[in-house]
């Protein structure tokens, strides 16, 4: 173990020139963003300063590396980046200089030395088809690597929608029989940081809270930290007043779009998507997709790829695009069943007439 690896977080921050004041400010801001009580900021700073740098094993499976890009592309130099550097990232096949057997040996050593204590970060879904042959590293399938790594992990943080919910590989027809981590590992705390990709500050914030408190944060029904996934994008969207006023962009280049009106009719999935995009935003709080003029595609929700077109309004998803004639299938169902109904109606009217005729005939016959 090197000298750098033995340093506490506080010592490491000092070495990077981060003042105590700056560190406490960061912890307070993080605690605030996560809706923790105000005193948690200084408590978090104290805990972190004296904490040994936790070992983190970062496994990348069936993914596009977008999540990792998101995390590493946080505007540098940022304190989030430094915090991330202060974590002992013992294995990441994307970032680490070592490769091949040396890299795998580093992973094995980190897992052995920190058994029961390391944080396992997983990026990407886990393909199980063809005995796991769709994703292998070092001659081992992703599913085997995950099972082995999960045994000694104190918790698993799933970064990105693929590892959290299966994501795009899991989408119909799921040719590799891919699954989210939660479908493979059932006996460890799992924290899902979903998004395609997730917001960098959400990843680092979640790791920071776990490292500083040693506890899994409050999670929603999809195991996502409520601090970041507690509200829908729609509820925090700066365009929400236009929704309430009934002002909607009809196309991406009409007057409504230029005036920044609500993108609901253009397919925005903000009302059913839980994420912090509208508050934390991206690129250092510069913007987020809706601010750039495109509706939310709901990438942090389970099954987002199979929920219809990104450009169909939420309430019209079952029919097709709003303002266009319903898909042929729907019209055929309606016309076909109406035709059957019409035949049934004619038949029941016929039966009714026959009965009437019969009773009239009977009355006539009974007339003296």
């Amino acid at each position, binding site marked *: 173990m090197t000298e750098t690896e033995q340093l506490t977080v506080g010592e490491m921050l000092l070495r990077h020139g981060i003042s105590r004041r700056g560190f406490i400010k960061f912890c307070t801001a993080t605690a605030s963003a996560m809706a923790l009580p105000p005193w948690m900021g200084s408590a978090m700073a104290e805990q972190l300063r004296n904490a040994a740098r936790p070992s983190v094993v970062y496994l990348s499976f069936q993914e596009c590396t977008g999540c990792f890009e998101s995390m590493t592309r946080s505007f540098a130099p940022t304190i989030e980046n430094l915090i991330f550097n202060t974590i002992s990232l013992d294995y990441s096949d994307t970032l680490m200089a070592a490769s091949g057997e040396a890299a795998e040996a580093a992973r094995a050593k980190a897992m052995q030395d920190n058994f029961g204590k390391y944080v396992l970060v997983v990026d990407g879904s886990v393909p199980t088809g063809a005995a796991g042959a769709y994703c292998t590293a070092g001659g081992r399938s992703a599913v085997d690597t995950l099972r082995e790594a999960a045994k000694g992990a104190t918790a698993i943080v799933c970064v990105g929608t693929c590892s959290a919910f299966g994501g795009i590989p899991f989408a119909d027809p799921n040719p590799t029989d891919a699954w989210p981590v939660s479908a493979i590992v059932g006996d460890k705390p799992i924290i899902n940081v979903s998004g395609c990709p997730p917001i960098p500050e959400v990843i680092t914030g979640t790791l920071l809270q776990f490292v500083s408190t040693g506890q899994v944060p409050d999670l929603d*029904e999809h195991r996502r930290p409520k601090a970041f996934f507690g509200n*829908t994008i729609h*509820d925090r969207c700066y365009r929400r007043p236009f*929704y*309430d*006023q*009934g002002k*909607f962009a009809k196309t991406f280049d009409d007057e409504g779009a230029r005036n920044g009106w609500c993108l*609901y*009719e253009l397919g925005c999935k903000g*009302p*059913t998507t839980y994420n912090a995009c509208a508050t934390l935003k991206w690129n250092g709080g510069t913007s987020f997709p809706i601010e750039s003029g495109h509706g939310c595609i709901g990438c942090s929700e*389970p*099954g987002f790829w199979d*929920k219809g077109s990104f450009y*169909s*309004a*939420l*309430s*019209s*998803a*079952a*029919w*097709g*695009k*709003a*303002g*266009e*004639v*319903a898909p042929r299938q*729907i019209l055929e*169902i*309606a*016309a*076909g*069943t*109406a*035709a*059957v*109904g*019409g035949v*049934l*109606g*004619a038949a*029941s*009217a*016929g039966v*009714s*007439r026959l009965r*009437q005729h019969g009773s009239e005939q009977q009355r006539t016959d009974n007339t003296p």
Partner: protein
Amino acid sequence: MDLLGFARGPALKVALAIFCLGVAWRIVGFALLRLRRDLNEPRASILKYLSGGFVAVGSRSWPHKEFIGRTGPGEALGYSYHIGLFAVVLLFTPHIVFLGGLLGVMWPGLPSSLITVISVVTVTLFLAVLFRRVTNPVMRMLSNFDDYFSWFITALVMATGLAATAHIGARYETLLGLHVLSVDVLLVWFPFGKLMHAFYIFPSRAINGALLARKGAIS
């Protein structure tokens, strides 16, 4: 598939199919029923006979002046919640988008906040209607399961829609799923219960008016 996906996907398609089948069944069955032959000589021309039908649609949609004191409040209540219901169903943008996707046409909507206010008022009126039904001895005697279930399912659609808008009770997508599911149930029930009055009310008034006009009576 989650609840919302189920509700607005396969469940909605099945509900729509049953709705179309049921409505066509009832309307065709109604249209082909045999009317008893009226052997009396007509007391009005064919023009008055037909216009009497149109007159009846209008005149019977308004309380008669002699009974306005007794029936007026009930009719005002009825009109109010029907207008509220129409406003919410037809002028709320997500509903317009839904119907637009089905019919291929779109129309302007009202501000969402105004729709919320109308919804609250309409739900209140729904409760008033129920109160009137259960407290009025005559109405209570006339009411059966059909009346109460038709009220219940319509009120449920309104209540779940409001709850989804206000995020009361559960997550938004769950409430939205329940809202759409309640619409599915309403569509299935619609042709077979008293909700079918939406299709029958004007034709039945017109037929009654025309038959009365044929006899020389004024609707």
